[in-house]
Protein backbone atom coordinates (compact mmCIF):
# COMPACT_ATOMS: atom_id res chain seq x y z
CA UNK A 1 0.00 0.00 0.00
CA UNK A 2 1.26 3.47 -0.83
CA UNK A 3 1.99 5.96 1.88
CA UNK A 4 -0.89 8.37 2.57
CA UNK A 5 -0.22 12.00 1.69
CA UNK A 6 -1.32 13.22 5.09
CA UNK A 7 -1.23 11.09 8.19
CA UNK A 8 -2.57 12.30 11.50
CA UNK A 9 -1.88 10.17 14.55
CA UNK A 10 -3.46 10.53 17.98
CA UNK A 11 -3.79 14.28 17.49
CA UNK A 12 -4.84 16.28 20.52
CA UNK A 13 -5.21 20.03 20.57
CA UNK A 14 -6.04 21.84 23.78
CA UNK A 15 -6.48 25.57 24.03
CA UNK A 16 -5.86 27.07 27.47
CA UNK A 17 -8.44 29.62 28.53
CA UNK A 18 -7.91 32.50 30.88
CA UNK A 19 -9.88 32.35 34.11
CA UNK A 20 -8.55 34.80 36.70
CA UNK A 21 -4.88 35.65 36.74
CA UNK A 22 -4.61 34.62 40.40
CA UNK A 23 -6.59 31.45 39.93
CA UNK A 24 -4.78 28.15 40.15
CA UNK A 25 -7.29 26.58 37.82
CA UNK A 26 -5.97 25.99 34.35
CA UNK A 27 -9.00 25.01 32.29
CA UNK A 28 -8.52 24.02 28.65
CA UNK A 29 -10.82 23.65 25.69
CA UNK A 30 -10.40 20.11 24.37
CA UNK A 31 -10.65 20.96 20.68
CA UNK A 32 -9.31 17.64 19.44
CA UNK A 33 -9.08 14.48 21.53
CA UNK A 34 -7.00 11.83 19.82
CA UNK A 35 -7.82 12.01 16.13
CA UNK A 36 -6.36 9.51 13.65
CA UNK A 37 -6.89 10.31 10.00
CA UNK A 38 -5.15 9.27 6.79
CA UNK A 39 -5.67 11.17 3.57
CA UNK A 40 -4.52 9.42 0.41
CA UNK A 41 -3.31 11.18 -2.70
CA UNK A 42 -6.19 12.19 -4.92
CA UNK A 43 -8.76 11.98 -2.13
CA UNK A 44 -11.46 14.55 -1.63
CA UNK A 45 -11.54 13.91 2.10
CA UNK A 46 -14.51 15.55 3.81
CA UNK A 47 -14.82 16.45 7.45
CA UNK A 48 -18.39 16.93 8.63
CA UNK A 49 -19.83 17.82 11.95
CA UNK A 50 -21.61 20.60 13.76
CA UNK A 51 -20.09 23.83 14.99
CA UNK A 52 -17.51 23.26 17.69
CA UNK A 53 -16.75 19.65 16.74
CA UNK A 54 -13.13 20.47 15.88
CA UNK A 55 -13.22 20.14 12.10
CA UNK A 56 -11.68 23.56 11.48
CA UNK A 57 -9.07 23.00 14.20
CA UNK A 58 -8.07 19.74 12.53
CA UNK A 59 -7.66 21.50 9.17
CA UNK A 60 -5.67 24.33 10.67
CA UNK A 61 -3.45 21.98 12.66
CA UNK A 62 -2.61 19.99 9.54
CA UNK A 63 -1.74 23.28 7.83
CA UNK A 64 0.63 24.08 10.71
CA UNK A 65 -1.40 27.08 11.82
CA UNK A 66 -2.13 25.51 15.20
CA UNK A 67 0.45 23.56 17.21
CA UNK A 68 -0.67 20.11 18.35
CA UNK A 69 -0.64 19.49 22.11
CA UNK A 70 -0.08 15.76 21.62
CA UNK A 71 0.28 13.66 18.50
CA UNK A 72 1.95 13.70 15.16
CA UNK A 73 1.22 14.87 11.63
CA UNK A 74 3.17 13.55 8.66
CA UNK A 75 3.07 14.89 5.16
CA UNK A 76 4.28 12.69 2.33
CA UNK A 77 6.06 10.46 4.84
CA UNK A 78 7.86 13.28 6.69
CA UNK A 79 6.85 14.43 10.13
CA UNK A 80 5.82 18.09 9.91
CA UNK A 81 4.30 18.67 13.33
CA UNK A 82 6.76 20.42 15.62
CA UNK A 83 8.92 21.73 12.77
CA UNK A 84 10.18 25.29 13.06
CA UNK A 85 8.57 27.84 10.77
CA UNK A 86 11.66 27.96 8.54
CA UNK A 87 11.75 24.18 8.14
CA UNK A 88 8.04 24.13 7.39
CA UNK A 89 8.34 26.54 4.45
CA UNK A 90 8.84 23.96 1.68
CA UNK A 91 5.69 22.17 2.87
CA UNK A 92 3.73 25.39 3.03
CA UNK A 93 4.21 25.77 -0.70
CA UNK A 94 2.72 22.35 -1.31
CA UNK A 95 -0.34 22.90 0.85
CA UNK A 96 -2.72 25.81 0.53
CA UNK A 97 -5.93 26.87 2.16
CA UNK A 98 -9.27 28.30 1.00
CA UNK A 99 -11.40 30.01 3.62
CA UNK A 100 -15.12 30.26 4.19
CA UNK A 101 -15.78 33.93 3.84
CA UNK A 102 -14.40 35.50 0.67
CA UNK A 103 -15.38 38.90 2.08
CA UNK A 104 -12.88 38.48 4.91
CA UNK A 105 -10.11 36.40 3.39
CA UNK A 106 -9.09 38.85 0.65
CA UNK A 107 -7.20 41.98 1.65
CA UNK A 108 -9.47 44.90 0.72
CA UNK A 109 -6.50 47.20 0.13
CA UNK A 110 -4.72 44.95 -2.34
CA UNK A 111 -5.63 44.66 -5.99
CA UNK A 112 -6.46 41.20 -7.27
CA UNK A 113 -3.09 41.15 -9.06
CA UNK A 114 -1.20 41.96 -5.84
CA UNK A 115 -3.19 39.34 -3.91
CA UNK A 116 -2.37 36.67 -6.47
CA UNK A 117 1.28 37.62 -6.88
CA UNK A 118 2.08 37.67 -3.19
CA UNK A 119 2.34 33.91 -2.59
CA UNK A 120 4.33 33.47 -5.78
CA UNK A 121 6.84 36.21 -4.99
CA UNK A 122 7.27 34.71 -1.54
CA UNK A 123 7.66 31.07 -2.46
CA UNK A 124 9.24 31.44 -5.89
CA UNK A 125 11.26 34.63 -5.65
CA UNK A 126 13.48 33.54 -8.53
CA UNK A 127 10.74 34.24 -11.09
CA UNK A 128 11.00 37.39 -13.23
CA UNK A 129 8.19 39.96 -13.33
CA UNK A 130 7.13 38.80 -16.74
CA UNK A 131 6.96 35.16 -15.60
CA UNK A 132 4.90 36.09 -12.55
CA UNK A 133 2.46 38.03 -14.74
CA UNK A 134 2.17 35.22 -17.21
CA UNK A 135 1.56 32.64 -14.48
CA UNK A 136 -1.08 34.84 -12.84
CA UNK A 137 -2.87 35.16 -16.13
CA UNK A 138 -2.83 31.42 -16.72
CA UNK A 139 -4.23 30.66 -13.29
CA UNK A 140 -6.94 33.32 -13.64
CA UNK A 141 -8.03 31.83 -16.96
CA UNK A 142 -7.99 28.28 -15.56
CA UNK A 143 -10.47 29.20 -12.81
CA UNK A 144 -12.68 31.05 -15.27
CA UNK A 145 -11.77 34.57 -14.21
CA UNK A 146 -11.17 37.45 -16.58
CA UNK A 147 -7.40 38.24 -16.39
CA UNK A 148 -8.40 41.89 -16.79
CA UNK A 149 -9.65 41.81 -13.16
CA UNK A 150 -6.08 42.24 -11.93
CA UNK A 151 -6.18 45.99 -11.37
CA UNK A 152 -9.49 45.89 -9.49
CA UNK A 153 -10.16 45.57 -5.75
CA UNK A 154 -12.09 42.80 -3.95
CA UNK A 155 -15.08 45.03 -3.12
CA UNK A 156 -15.83 45.32 -6.83
CA UNK A 157 -16.67 41.62 -7.03
CA UNK A 158 -19.60 39.46 -5.98
CA UNK A 159 -19.24 36.65 -3.43
CA UNK A 160 -18.86 33.94 -6.06
CA UNK A 161 -16.27 35.92 -8.00
CA UNK A 162 -14.34 36.60 -4.81
CA UNK A 163 -14.32 32.92 -3.93
CA UNK A 164 -12.95 32.18 -7.41
CA UNK A 165 -10.19 34.73 -6.73
CA UNK A 166 -9.42 32.95 -3.43
CA UNK A 167 -9.22 29.66 -5.29
CA UNK A 168 -6.88 31.26 -7.85
CA UNK A 169 -4.69 32.53 -5.02
CA UNK A 170 -4.46 29.03 -3.53
CA UNK A 171 -3.50 27.61 -6.94
CA UNK A 172 -0.80 30.21 -7.64
CA UNK A 173 2.03 28.15 -6.10
CA UNK A 174 0.88 24.90 -7.74
CA UNK A 175 0.03 23.09 -4.50
CA UNK A 176 -0.79 19.40 -4.31
CA UNK A 177 -2.94 19.55 -1.18
CA UNK A 178 -5.68 22.07 -0.43
CA UNK A 179 -7.58 22.52 2.82
CA UNK A 180 -10.92 24.11 1.96
CA UNK A 181 -12.75 25.30 5.07
CA UNK A 182 -16.48 25.69 4.28
CA UNK A 183 -15.66 27.21 0.88
CA UNK A 184 -19.27 27.40 -0.29
CA UNK A 185 -21.17 27.95 2.96
CA UNK A 186 -21.38 31.73 2.58
CA UNK A 187 -22.63 31.51 -1.01
CA UNK A 188 -26.11 31.32 -2.52
CA UNK A 189 -27.26 28.01 -4.00
CA UNK A 190 -26.79 28.97 -7.65
CA UNK A 191 -23.30 30.33 -6.91
CA UNK A 192 -22.48 27.33 -4.69
CA UNK A 193 -22.90 25.03 -7.69
CA UNK A 194 -20.54 27.18 -9.76
CA UNK A 195 -17.81 27.11 -7.10
CA UNK A 196 -18.20 23.37 -6.40
CA UNK A 197 -17.93 22.66 -10.11
CA UNK A 198 -14.76 24.73 -10.27
CA UNK A 199 -13.24 22.90 -7.28
CA UNK A 200 -14.01 19.55 -8.92
CA UNK A 201 -12.57 20.70 -12.24
CA UNK A 202 -9.23 21.91 -10.82
CA UNK A 203 -8.95 18.77 -8.74
CA UNK A 204 -9.14 16.67 -11.88
CA UNK A 205 -6.85 18.91 -13.94
CA UNK A 206 -4.17 19.25 -11.30
CA UNK A 207 -4.57 15.91 -9.47
CA UNK A 208 -5.18 17.77 -6.23
CA UNK A 209 -5.90 16.24 -2.86
CA UNK A 210 -8.55 18.03 -0.83
CA UNK A 211 -9.39 18.21 2.82
CA UNK A 212 -12.89 19.60 2.55
CA UNK A 213 -14.44 20.94 5.74
CA UNK A 214 -18.19 21.39 5.67
CA UNK A 215 -21.35 21.07 7.71
CA UNK A 216 -23.42 20.33 4.61
CA UNK A 217 -23.88 16.61 4.09
CA UNK A 218 -25.33 16.98 0.61
CA UNK A 219 -22.06 18.59 -0.48
CA UNK A 220 -20.17 15.64 1.04
CA UNK A 221 -22.33 13.16 -0.82
CA UNK A 222 -21.68 14.94 -4.07
CA UNK A 223 -18.07 15.90 -3.69
CA UNK A 224 -16.28 13.54 -1.33
CA UNK A 225 -14.36 10.33 -1.88
CA UNK A 226 -13.98 9.74 1.87
CA UNK A 227 -15.69 11.28 4.85
CA UNK A 228 -15.05 11.55 8.58
CA UNK A 229 -17.92 12.48 10.88
CA UNK A 230 -16.71 14.42 13.91
CA UNK A 231 -18.32 15.08 17.24
CA UNK A 232 -16.79 17.05 20.08
CA UNK A 233 -13.18 16.65 18.97
CA UNK A 234 -13.30 12.99 18.03
CA UNK A 235 -13.94 11.08 14.82
CA UNK A 236 -16.96 8.85 15.31
CA UNK A 237 -17.21 7.35 11.84
CA UNK A 238 -14.93 7.26 8.80
CA UNK A 239 -15.99 5.75 5.49
CA UNK A 240 -16.99 6.62 1.92
CA UNK A 241 -19.90 9.03 1.44
CA UNK A 242 -21.82 6.28 -0.37
CA UNK A 243 -21.57 3.90 2.58
CA UNK A 244 -22.33 6.65 5.08
CA UNK A 245 -25.54 7.63 3.30
CA UNK A 246 -26.62 4.05 2.69
CA UNK A 247 -25.78 2.63 6.12
CA UNK A 248 -24.80 5.20 8.74
CA UNK A 249 -23.56 3.11 11.66
CA UNK A 250 -22.67 5.50 14.47
CA UNK A 251 -25.73 6.80 16.35
CA UNK A 252 -24.51 10.37 15.82
CA UNK A 253 -24.14 9.85 12.06
CA UNK A 254 -27.68 8.49 12.02
CA UNK A 255 -28.91 11.53 13.90
CA UNK A 256 -27.09 13.91 11.59
CA UNK A 257 -28.48 12.27 8.47
CA UNK A 258 -32.02 12.22 9.79
CA UNK A 259 -31.86 15.93 10.55
CA UNK A 260 -31.19 17.08 6.98
CA UNK A 261 -34.29 18.58 5.42
CA UNK A 262 -35.27 16.54 2.38
CA UNK A 263 -36.58 18.02 -0.83
CA UNK A 264 -40.01 16.77 -1.66
CA UNK A 265 -40.54 14.95 1.62
CA UNK A 266 -44.17 15.59 2.27
CA UNK A 267 -44.21 15.92 6.01
CA UNK A 268 -41.82 17.20 8.54
CA UNK A 269 -40.17 14.44 10.54
CA UNK A 270 -39.17 15.85 13.88
CA UNK A 271 -35.83 14.83 15.26
CA UNK A 272 -35.65 13.96 18.90
CA UNK A 273 -32.26 14.61 20.39
CA UNK A 274 -32.02 14.61 24.13
CA UNK A 275 -29.83 17.41 25.43
CA UNK A 276 -27.25 19.54 23.71
CA UNK A 277 -23.61 19.25 22.74
CA UNK A 278 -21.64 19.20 26.03
CA UNK A 279 -18.95 21.74 26.72
CA UNK A 280 -15.50 20.90 25.36
CA UNK A 281 -14.07 22.31 28.61
CA UNK A 282 -15.58 19.58 30.78
CA UNK A 283 -15.58 16.64 28.45
CA UNK A 284 -17.95 13.82 29.37
CA UNK A 285 -16.27 10.64 30.50
CA UNK A 286 -16.19 7.68 28.16
CA UNK A 287 -17.82 8.17 24.79
CA UNK A 288 -18.33 11.91 24.19
CA UNK A 289 -21.76 11.21 22.69
CA UNK A 290 -23.12 9.02 25.50
CA UNK A 291 -25.20 11.75 27.15
CA UNK A 292 -27.36 12.10 24.05
CA UNK A 293 -27.27 8.55 22.79
CA UNK A 294 -30.22 6.26 23.32
CA UNK A 295 -28.01 3.20 23.07
CA UNK A 296 -25.63 4.31 25.82
CA UNK A 297 -24.94 1.94 28.72
CA UNK A 298 -22.48 1.76 31.60
CA UNK A 299 -19.55 0.91 29.37
CA UNK A 300 -20.21 3.97 27.18
CA UNK A 301 -20.10 6.19 30.25
CA UNK A 302 -16.71 4.99 31.39
CA UNK A 303 -14.71 3.73 28.42
CA UNK A 304 -13.74 5.79 25.37
CA UNK A 305 -14.58 3.80 22.22
CA UNK A 306 -11.86 3.39 19.60
CA UNK A 307 -12.28 3.49 15.84
CA UNK A 308 -12.70 -0.11 14.72
CA UNK A 309 -13.07 -1.60 11.28
CA UNK A 310 -16.41 -2.92 10.09
CA UNK A 311 -16.91 -3.86 6.46
CA UNK A 312 -16.30 -0.61 4.61
CA UNK A 313 -16.31 1.73 7.58
CA UNK A 314 -14.44 2.63 10.74
CA UNK A 315 -16.74 3.34 13.65
CA UNK A 316 -16.01 4.35 17.23
CA UNK A 317 -18.97 3.00 19.15
CA UNK A 318 -19.39 0.32 21.81
CA UNK A 319 -22.98 -0.31 20.77
CA UNK A 320 -21.91 -1.03 17.19
CA UNK A 321 -19.16 -3.30 18.46
CA UNK A 322 -21.55 -5.21 20.71
CA UNK A 323 -24.19 -5.23 17.98
CA UNK A 324 -26.73 -3.54 20.21
CA UNK A 325 -28.12 -1.13 17.58
Amino acid at each position, binding site marked *: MTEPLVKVQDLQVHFPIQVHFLSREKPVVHALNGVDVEIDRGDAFCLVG*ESGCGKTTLGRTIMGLVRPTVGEISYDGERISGLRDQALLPYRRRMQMIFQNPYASLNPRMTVQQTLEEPLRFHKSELSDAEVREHTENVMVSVGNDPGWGSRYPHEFSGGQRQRISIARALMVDPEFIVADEPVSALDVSIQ*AQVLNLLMKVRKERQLTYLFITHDLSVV*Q*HFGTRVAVMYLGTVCEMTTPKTLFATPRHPYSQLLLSAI*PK*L*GRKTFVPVKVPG*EVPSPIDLPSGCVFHGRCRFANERCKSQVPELKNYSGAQVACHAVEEDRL
Partner: protein
Amino acid sequence: MALLEVRDLEVEFAMRGARLKALRGVSFDLDAGDRLGIVGESGAGKSMAAYAILNLISEPGRISAGSIAFDGRVLNTLPAEEMRKVRGDRIAMIFQDPMMTLNPVLTVGAQMVECLKTHRTISDGEARALSVQKLREVAIPSPDARFDSYPHELSGGLRQRVVIAIALLLDPAVIIADEPTTALDVTIQAEIMGLMLDLCETRGVSLILITHDIAVVSETTQRMLVMYAGRVVEQGETRGIIARPSHPYTRGLLQALPQRNKPGAELNQIPGSMPTLAELPPGCAFHPRCAYADDTCSGGVPALRTLGKRLVACHHAERLK
Protein backbone atom coordinates in the same frame (compact mmCIF):
# COMPACT_ATOMS: atom_id res chain seq x y z
CA MET B 1 -61.36 37.51 3.36
CA ALA B 2 -57.94 36.26 4.27
CA LEU B 3 -56.25 37.13 7.55
CA LEU B 4 -53.40 38.91 5.83
CA GLU B 5 -53.80 40.34 2.34
CA VAL B 6 -50.81 41.83 0.58
CA ARG B 7 -51.57 43.53 -2.72
CA ASP B 8 -49.12 44.84 -5.32
CA LEU B 9 -46.62 45.78 -2.68
CA GLU B 10 -43.82 48.00 -3.86
CA VAL B 11 -40.85 49.28 -1.86
CA GLU B 12 -38.63 52.02 -3.19
CA PHE B 13 -35.29 53.40 -2.07
CA ALA B 14 -34.13 56.88 -3.05
CA MET B 15 -30.41 56.47 -3.64
CA ARG B 16 -28.16 59.14 -5.15
CA GLY B 17 -30.97 60.73 -7.11
CA ALA B 18 -32.17 57.40 -8.50
CA ARG B 19 -35.20 55.46 -7.30
CA LEU B 20 -34.44 51.79 -6.78
CA LYS B 21 -37.34 49.38 -6.51
CA ALA B 22 -36.37 46.78 -3.91
CA LEU B 23 -39.76 45.10 -4.16
CA ARG B 24 -42.17 45.16 -7.07
CA GLY B 25 -45.70 43.83 -7.29
CA VAL B 26 -45.73 41.32 -4.45
CA SER B 27 -49.22 39.98 -3.68
CA PHE B 28 -50.36 37.11 -1.52
CA ASP B 29 -53.03 35.98 0.93
CA LEU B 30 -52.42 34.24 4.21
CA ASP B 31 -55.30 32.48 5.96
CA ALA B 32 -55.44 31.68 9.63
CA GLY B 33 -53.26 28.64 10.28
CA ASP B 34 -51.61 28.77 6.83
CA ARG B 35 -47.90 28.39 6.31
CA LEU B 36 -46.26 30.32 3.49
CA GLY B 37 -42.63 30.07 2.43
CA ILE B 38 -40.72 32.87 0.74
CA VAL B 39 -37.60 31.58 -1.03
CA GLY B 40 -34.84 33.36 -2.89
CA GLU B 41 -31.15 34.15 -2.85
CA SER B 42 -29.58 37.06 -0.99
CA GLY B 43 -30.81 40.35 -2.38
CA ALA B 44 -33.99 38.87 -3.86
CA GLY B 45 -36.17 40.98 -1.57
CA LYS B 46 -37.48 38.31 0.81
CA SER B 47 -36.64 40.15 4.01
CA MET B 48 -37.82 43.39 2.45
CA ALA B 49 -41.26 41.84 2.08
CA ALA B 50 -41.30 40.93 5.78
CA TYR B 51 -40.17 44.36 6.89
CA ALA B 52 -42.78 45.99 4.64
CA ILE B 53 -45.59 43.94 6.22
CA LEU B 54 -44.56 45.17 9.65
CA ASN B 55 -44.09 48.71 8.34
CA LEU B 56 -40.43 48.62 9.34
CA ILE B 57 -38.98 50.12 6.15
CA SER B 58 -37.03 53.20 7.17
CA GLU B 59 -35.56 56.14 5.24
CA PRO B 60 -34.42 56.31 2.49
CA GLY B 61 -36.84 53.48 1.77
CA ARG B 62 -40.63 53.65 1.71
CA ILE B 63 -43.63 51.62 0.66
CA SER B 64 -44.36 53.36 -2.63
CA ALA B 65 -47.41 51.39 -3.76
CA GLY B 66 -49.74 48.59 -2.77
CA SER B 67 -51.52 47.71 0.43
CA ILE B 68 -51.24 45.37 3.39
CA ALA B 69 -54.50 44.47 5.07
CA PHE B 70 -54.48 42.51 8.31
CA ASP B 71 -57.72 41.37 9.90
CA GLY B 72 -59.61 43.97 7.85
CA ARG B 73 -57.31 46.88 8.72
CA VAL B 74 -54.92 48.50 6.27
CA LEU B 75 -51.51 48.44 7.97
CA ASN B 76 -49.38 50.56 5.68
CA THR B 77 -51.34 53.76 6.39
CA LEU B 78 -51.69 53.23 10.14
CA PRO B 79 -50.21 55.95 12.35
CA ALA B 80 -46.94 54.87 13.99
CA GLU B 81 -48.58 54.63 17.41
CA GLU B 82 -51.29 52.26 16.16
CA MET B 83 -48.82 50.17 14.18
CA ARG B 84 -46.73 49.67 17.29
CA LYS B 85 -49.71 48.00 18.92
CA VAL B 86 -50.00 45.48 16.10
CA ARG B 87 -46.30 44.76 15.87
CA GLY B 88 -45.16 42.13 18.34
CA ASP B 89 -48.72 41.69 19.54
CA ARG B 90 -50.84 40.43 16.64
CA ILE B 91 -47.94 39.92 14.22
CA ALA B 92 -44.65 38.74 15.71
CA MET B 93 -41.29 38.45 14.06
CA ILE B 94 -38.39 36.03 14.56
CA PHE B 95 -35.04 37.07 13.16
CA GLN B 96 -32.10 35.05 11.93
CA ASP B 97 -29.50 35.59 14.60
CA PRO B 98 -30.77 35.12 18.15
CA MET B 99 -27.64 36.74 19.55
CA MET B 100 -28.45 39.95 17.70
CA THR B 101 -32.16 39.85 18.54
CA LEU B 102 -31.78 39.50 22.28
CA ASN B 103 -30.42 42.35 24.33
CA PRO B 104 -27.14 41.12 25.85
CA VAL B 105 -27.33 43.30 28.97
CA LEU B 106 -30.84 42.28 30.01
CA THR B 107 -31.89 38.91 31.42
CA VAL B 108 -34.21 36.74 29.37
CA GLY B 109 -36.95 37.45 31.88
CA ALA B 110 -36.51 41.23 31.78
CA GLN B 111 -36.94 41.19 28.01
CA MET B 112 -40.08 39.08 28.23
CA VAL B 113 -41.63 41.21 30.96
CA GLU B 114 -40.79 44.37 29.02
CA CYS B 115 -42.65 43.03 26.03
CA LEU B 116 -45.67 42.04 28.13
CA LYS B 117 -45.87 45.37 29.95
CA THR B 118 -45.64 47.35 26.72
CA HIS B 119 -48.72 45.65 25.34
CA ARG B 120 -50.76 44.65 28.38
CA THR B 121 -51.64 45.89 31.83
CA ILE B 122 -50.19 43.14 33.96
CA SER B 123 -48.62 42.78 37.39
CA ASP B 124 -44.98 41.79 37.90
CA GLY B 125 -45.97 38.43 39.36
CA GLU B 126 -48.34 37.59 36.52
CA ALA B 127 -45.80 38.70 33.92
CA ARG B 128 -43.21 36.40 35.42
CA ALA B 129 -45.59 33.48 35.67
CA LEU B 130 -46.69 33.93 32.05
CA SER B 131 -43.11 34.26 30.80
CA VAL B 132 -42.00 31.12 32.62
CA GLN B 133 -44.97 29.28 31.18
CA LYS B 134 -43.99 30.33 27.63
CA LEU B 135 -40.40 29.25 28.25
CA ARG B 136 -41.78 25.88 29.33
CA GLU B 137 -43.91 25.63 26.19
CA VAL B 138 -40.85 25.99 23.97
CA ALA B 139 -39.27 23.11 25.94
CA ILE B 140 -36.55 25.07 27.68
CA PRO B 141 -35.23 22.95 30.57
CA SER B 142 -35.64 24.52 34.05
CA PRO B 143 -37.54 27.59 32.77
CA ASP B 144 -37.64 29.17 36.24
CA ALA B 145 -33.85 29.38 36.36
CA ARG B 146 -33.57 30.40 32.69
CA PHE B 147 -35.87 33.36 33.33
CA ASP B 148 -32.98 34.97 35.20
CA SER B 149 -30.24 33.97 32.70
CA TYR B 150 -28.49 36.34 30.36
CA PRO B 151 -28.52 35.49 26.64
CA HIS B 152 -24.77 34.74 26.58
CA GLU B 153 -25.31 31.99 29.14
CA LEU B 154 -27.48 30.05 26.70
CA SER B 155 -26.52 27.96 23.67
CA GLY B 156 -27.58 29.03 20.16
CA GLY B 157 -30.49 26.59 20.12
CA LEU B 158 -31.77 27.71 23.52
CA ARG B 159 -31.48 31.37 22.51
CA GLN B 160 -33.61 30.79 19.45
CA ARG B 161 -36.14 29.01 21.69
CA VAL B 162 -36.21 32.11 23.89
CA VAL B 163 -36.84 34.25 20.80
CA ILE B 164 -39.72 31.97 19.84
CA ALA B 165 -41.10 32.15 23.39
CA ILE B 166 -41.03 35.96 23.16
CA ALA B 167 -42.76 35.86 19.78
CA LEU B 168 -45.51 33.68 21.29
CA LEU B 169 -45.84 35.77 24.43
CA LEU B 170 -48.86 37.78 23.28
CA ASP B 171 -50.51 34.96 21.31
CA PRO B 172 -50.01 36.49 17.86
CA ALA B 173 -52.11 35.55 14.86
CA VAL B 174 -49.14 35.63 12.48
CA ILE B 175 -45.46 34.88 12.98
CA ILE B 176 -42.97 36.07 10.40
CA ALA B 177 -39.75 34.08 10.70
CA ASP B 178 -36.81 35.46 8.74
CA GLU B 179 -34.20 32.69 8.31
CA PRO B 180 -34.95 31.39 11.83
CA THR B 181 -32.60 28.42 11.61
CA THR B 182 -29.90 29.57 9.21
CA ALA B 183 -27.42 30.33 12.00
CA LEU B 184 -28.03 26.94 13.65
CA ASP B 185 -26.65 23.44 13.14
CA VAL B 186 -28.79 20.88 11.29
CA THR B 187 -29.79 18.86 14.34
CA ILE B 188 -30.78 22.05 16.18
CA GLN B 189 -32.52 23.31 13.04
CA ALA B 190 -34.61 20.16 12.92
CA GLU B 191 -35.60 20.59 16.56
CA ILE B 192 -36.46 24.28 16.22
CA MET B 193 -38.49 23.78 13.04
CA GLY B 194 -40.32 20.90 14.69
CA LEU B 195 -41.11 23.11 17.66
CA MET B 196 -42.33 26.02 15.51
CA LEU B 197 -44.57 23.80 13.40
CA ASP B 198 -46.01 22.18 16.48
CA LEU B 199 -46.76 25.50 18.15
CA CYS B 200 -48.26 27.02 14.99
CA GLU B 201 -50.46 23.98 14.46
CA THR B 202 -51.78 23.65 18.00
CA ARG B 203 -52.58 27.36 18.26
CA GLY B 204 -53.68 28.00 14.69
CA VAL B 205 -50.97 30.61 14.22
CA SER B 206 -50.11 31.49 10.61
CA LEU B 207 -46.45 31.38 9.62
CA ILE B 208 -44.49 33.22 6.97
CA LEU B 209 -41.17 31.42 6.67
CA ILE B 210 -38.43 33.32 4.86
CA THR B 211 -35.42 31.23 3.91
CA HIS B 212 -32.90 30.50 1.20
CA ASP B 213 -33.24 26.78 1.89
CA ILE B 214 -35.80 25.24 -0.47
CA ALA B 215 -35.62 21.92 1.32
CA VAL B 216 -36.82 23.48 4.59
CA VAL B 217 -39.70 25.20 2.79
CA SER B 218 -40.62 21.98 1.01
CA GLU B 219 -41.02 20.15 4.31
CA THR B 220 -42.83 22.79 6.28
CA THR B 221 -45.09 25.02 4.15
CA GLN B 222 -48.23 24.58 2.06
CA ARG B 223 -47.64 27.44 -0.35
CA MET B 224 -44.54 29.31 -1.46
CA LEU B 225 -43.26 32.36 -3.32
CA VAL B 226 -40.01 32.30 -5.24
CA MET B 227 -38.41 35.72 -5.51
CA TYR B 228 -35.76 37.07 -7.83
CA ALA B 229 -34.41 40.64 -7.99
CA GLY B 230 -37.35 42.12 -6.08
CA ARG B 231 -40.12 40.30 -7.96
CA VAL B 232 -42.13 37.17 -7.41
CA VAL B 233 -41.28 34.81 -10.26
CA GLU B 234 -43.35 31.84 -9.17
CA GLN B 235 -46.10 31.38 -6.61
CA GLY B 236 -48.32 28.47 -5.71
CA GLU B 237 -48.56 25.20 -3.82
CA THR B 238 -45.20 24.19 -2.41
CA ARG B 239 -45.47 20.55 -3.35
CA GLY B 240 -46.35 21.28 -6.95
CA ILE B 241 -43.57 23.82 -7.41
CA ILE B 242 -40.94 21.48 -5.98
CA ALA B 243 -42.12 18.61 -8.14
CA ARG B 244 -42.59 20.58 -11.38
CA PRO B 245 -41.21 24.13 -11.33
CA SER B 246 -42.61 26.39 -14.06
CA HIS B 247 -40.09 29.19 -13.93
CA PRO B 248 -36.57 28.59 -15.29
CA TYR B 249 -35.08 30.22 -12.18
CA THR B 250 -36.96 27.93 -9.78
CA ARG B 251 -35.95 24.99 -11.90
CA GLY B 252 -32.32 26.16 -11.96
CA LEU B 253 -32.26 26.53 -8.17
CA LEU B 254 -33.64 23.04 -7.63
CA GLN B 255 -31.32 21.45 -10.17
CA ALA B 256 -28.27 23.18 -8.69
CA LEU B 257 -28.77 21.37 -5.38
CA PRO B 258 -26.24 18.57 -4.89
CA GLN B 259 -29.02 16.16 -3.84
CA ARG B 260 -30.61 16.58 -7.29
CA ASN B 261 -27.39 15.63 -9.07
CA LYS B 262 -25.49 12.38 -9.56
CA PRO B 263 -22.64 12.24 -7.02
CA GLY B 264 -19.38 13.41 -8.55
CA ALA B 265 -20.99 14.69 -11.75
CA GLU B 266 -20.82 18.33 -12.72
CA LEU B 267 -23.60 20.23 -10.95
CA ASN B 268 -26.23 21.99 -13.03
CA GLN B 269 -25.22 25.55 -12.34
CA ILE B 270 -27.02 28.76 -13.19
CA PRO B 271 -24.43 30.92 -14.95
CA GLY B 272 -23.73 34.46 -13.72
CA SER B 273 -25.18 36.00 -10.58
CA MET B 274 -28.24 37.99 -9.54
CA PRO B 275 -28.06 41.61 -10.77
CA THR B 276 -27.98 44.44 -8.25
CA LEU B 277 -31.03 46.70 -8.17
CA ALA B 278 -29.03 49.52 -9.73
CA GLU B 279 -28.09 47.41 -12.75
CA LEU B 280 -31.28 45.52 -13.55
CA PRO B 281 -31.23 44.29 -17.12
CA PRO B 282 -34.11 45.38 -19.38
CA GLY B 283 -37.11 43.06 -19.62
CA CYS B 284 -37.06 39.92 -17.46
CA ALA B 285 -34.37 40.37 -14.79
CA PHE B 286 -33.40 36.70 -15.11
CA HIS B 287 -32.94 36.63 -18.90
CA PRO B 288 -29.13 37.05 -19.02
CA ARG B 289 -28.80 33.81 -16.99
CA CYS B 290 -31.67 31.92 -18.61
CA ALA B 291 -31.34 29.13 -21.18
CA TYR B 292 -34.81 29.88 -22.60
CA ALA B 293 -34.24 33.60 -23.11
CA ASP B 294 -34.88 35.25 -26.48
CA ASP B 295 -35.77 38.75 -27.73
CA THR B 296 -39.18 38.76 -26.04
CA CYS B 297 -37.44 38.34 -22.67
CA SER B 298 -35.15 41.35 -23.05
CA GLY B 299 -38.01 43.32 -24.62
CA GLY B 300 -40.64 43.22 -21.90
CA VAL B 301 -41.01 42.41 -18.21
CA PRO B 302 -43.13 39.24 -17.99
CA ALA B 303 -46.30 39.72 -15.95
CA LEU B 304 -47.13 37.31 -13.14
CA ARG B 305 -49.82 35.26 -14.85
CA THR B 306 -51.91 32.22 -14.03
CA LEU B 307 -50.69 28.92 -15.36
CA GLY B 308 -52.72 25.99 -14.12
CA LYS B 309 -52.99 26.30 -10.34
CA ARG B 310 -50.00 28.56 -10.14
CA LEU B 311 -48.68 32.04 -10.89
CA VAL B 312 -45.56 32.39 -13.05
CA ALA B 313 -43.71 35.41 -14.39
CA CYS B 314 -42.08 33.99 -17.51
CA HIS B 315 -42.75 34.44 -21.22
CA HIS B 316 -41.79 30.83 -21.86
CA ALA B 317 -43.30 29.01 -18.87
CA GLU B 318 -45.25 26.67 -21.17
CA ARG B 319 -42.01 25.38 -22.65
CA LEU B 320 -40.90 24.05 -19.26
CA LYS B 321 -43.86 21.72 -18.98
